[in-house]
């Protein structure tokens, strides 16, 4: 099995991803120095704690049910505070559970492109998070992907399982140490939402300015299951390209993707979400907000209706805050049977002068008015996050707000 994967991966090592600029993986250093495991994350240097907090990872673990930290390519911490939840390194989980091998490289194809291939060859770092049947996590679990070494290639393989009837919130904070400029992150994530389970997966990207990011995420939702994916990228990054895909297999399964992306000069962000509606009565919603201050953002969204009665809506809005920069909205709808209901709306433009003057007439300055409209545009309330997650995201936005707006 392992050998078969390896052979497949080797063959795909030069396979570029669709729609992307050429990235030479060999420019980045794989592996790197091993970091010791920390029983107590309070031992982390203060500076790193601060870096992680910006990405929504709170090392005080206040209102957190568990924590996982991948520093460079070492699992330096994995802990969980609630019975019925599991948090550990993927390698450890594969040793512990034989059945897990069937779910490993099961949704994401090893030879999808050179990034999946590279990740397969690099090994099984990353996290395994699982909620046992019927378990409802009181607080979110947090996972941190942290790059602390210049020019490093971080590669992670994550598996998330929300077993039948469970309810799980995960915040994944991806960040580089503040002194790091360049690096690369490849993240494979395979997500299983079982019958009547609910998973809220919030990913906050806070990478360095020269970091190349290639996540590859696929999820499957069974009958009555709900998958909520939130993605936030508010800081400069060299390039992100990803196209997470959800298969709504089960009857009445639901998927909702929300993304908030801010592009800066030199950023090239190509992000899409795809939902394939296969279950009877399945529902999907994709809501995207992109804002550019000079970077290029491609926002793809795709709904595929394969089962009669499936319903989906896609909403994509882009705001240009700079005469430079590009926002390219690509909403796609595909009906493969009749009786599916798919719709989309997309709008791209600059802030209306009328809106700014409306607020100026109430006494705000032009800058204050613009900031207020931008904050509204990036409104995270639409994400419908649980209170404690919402607070984290608001904090992340406020921090980026203070430094960039």
């Amino acid at each position, binding site marked *: 099995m392992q050998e078969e994967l390896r052979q497949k991966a080797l063959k795909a090592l030069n396979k570029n991803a669709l729609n992307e600029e050429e990235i030479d993986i060999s420019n980045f250093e794989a592996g790197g120095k091993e970091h010791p495991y920390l029983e107590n994350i309070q031992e982390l240097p203060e500076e790193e704690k601060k870096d992680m907090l910006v990405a929504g990872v709170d090392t005080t673990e206040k209102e957190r049910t568990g924590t996982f930290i991948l520093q460079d390519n070492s699992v330096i911490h994995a802990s969980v505070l609630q019975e019925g939840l599991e948090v550990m390194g993927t390698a450890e989980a594969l040793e512990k559970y034989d059945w897990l091998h069937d779910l490993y490289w099961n949704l994401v194809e090893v030879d999808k492109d050179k990034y999946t291939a590279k990740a397969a060859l690099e090994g099984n770092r990353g996290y395994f998070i699982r909620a046992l049947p019927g378990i409802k996590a009181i607080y979110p679990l947090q996972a941190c992907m942290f790059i602390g070494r210049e020019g490093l290639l971080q590669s992670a393989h994550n598996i998330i399982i929300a077993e039948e009837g469970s309810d799980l919130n995960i915040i994944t904070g991806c960040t580089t140490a503040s002194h790091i400029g360049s690096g690369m992150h490849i993240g494979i994530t395979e997500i299983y939402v079982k019958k009547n389970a609910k998973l809220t997966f919030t990913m906050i990207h806070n990478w360095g300015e020269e970091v190349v990011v290639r996540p590859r995420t696929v999820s499957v939702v069974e009958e009555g299951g709900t998958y909520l994916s939130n993605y936030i990228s508010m800081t400069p990054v060299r390039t992100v390209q990803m196209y997470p895909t959800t298969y709504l297999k089960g009857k009445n399964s639901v998927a909702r993707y929300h993304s908030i992306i801010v592009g800066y000069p030199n950023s090239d962000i190509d992000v899409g979400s795809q939902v394939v509606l296969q279950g009877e009565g399945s529902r999907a919603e994709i809501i995207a907000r992109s804002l550019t201050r000079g970077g290029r953002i491609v926002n793809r969204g795709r709904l595929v209706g394969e089962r009669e009665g499936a319903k989906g809506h896609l909403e994509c809005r882009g705001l240009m805050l700079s005469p430079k920069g590009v926002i390219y909205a690509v909403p796609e709808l595909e009906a493969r049977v009749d009786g599916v209901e798919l719709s989309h709306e997309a709008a791209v433009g600059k802030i209306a002068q009328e809106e700014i003057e409306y607020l100026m007439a*109430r006494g705000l300055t*032009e800058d204050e008015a613009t900031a*207020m*409209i931008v904050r509204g545009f990036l409104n995270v309330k639409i994400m419908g996050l649980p209170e404690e997650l919402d607070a984290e995201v608001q904090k992340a936005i406020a921090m980026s707000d203070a430094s960039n707006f």
Partner: protein
Amino acid sequence: MLRVEDLYVAVGGKTILKGVNLHIKPGETHVLFGPNGSGKSTLLGAIMGFDRYQVTSGKIFFKGKDITSLSVTERAKLGIGISFQRPPVLRGVSLGDLLQATDREENNINELAEPLNLLSFLERDVNYGFSGGEVKRSEMLQLLVQNPDLVLLDEPESGVDLENIAIIGDAVNRLLQKDGYHKPVCSRREAKESRKKAGLIITHTGYILDYVPADIGHVLYHGELSCTGLNPRELLGCIQKYGYADCTRCLA
């Protein structure tokens, strides 16, 4: 309080106002009548300083200061406020957030929102999905929080049902320190004399006059003030009788 001198204003290169003169003293409420397209909203927009209204000649003074080239923000901070006829929708910005951001006097916002039936709107996006009456009530609430010395009201009653007109009339009176909304005084005359707030109201129907006592009426016709300085109610009656074009017949 406000003095407009020989004002010419163009919109998109087309001259709309042609030499308007207007003087509003503290405590006075003026009413502006005129047919569609005569330049009423242009006059209000030019006083507020909106970008699309280009002053090509003439001057605007507020509290003795030449504000002709000041920004909208500066004018608002000096004490001019405006209610929009058709305000924009601000997605993601709640009415409550907006009020908090513009409140410079630590008002009790709930207390101001309650009589306007807007308590449940504070959480909603500004003007998003608001009905005609709700838009106008929200405009009144924003002005009450801002508390300007000169209030410009662009058709406060348009699209508003009868019940809501009373509520809006009440809010306008409050803005203009009329009736019971001023410090206790002995007589109407004293009340009027101690009042400092001024207003300029555009109205088509005149319904708002049933609720808001106004002092002076004007007709703006083809970009010029034709009949000016008359009692607003008499002027309205005259317009109904002779039409805007011939309102000058009432002057005789």
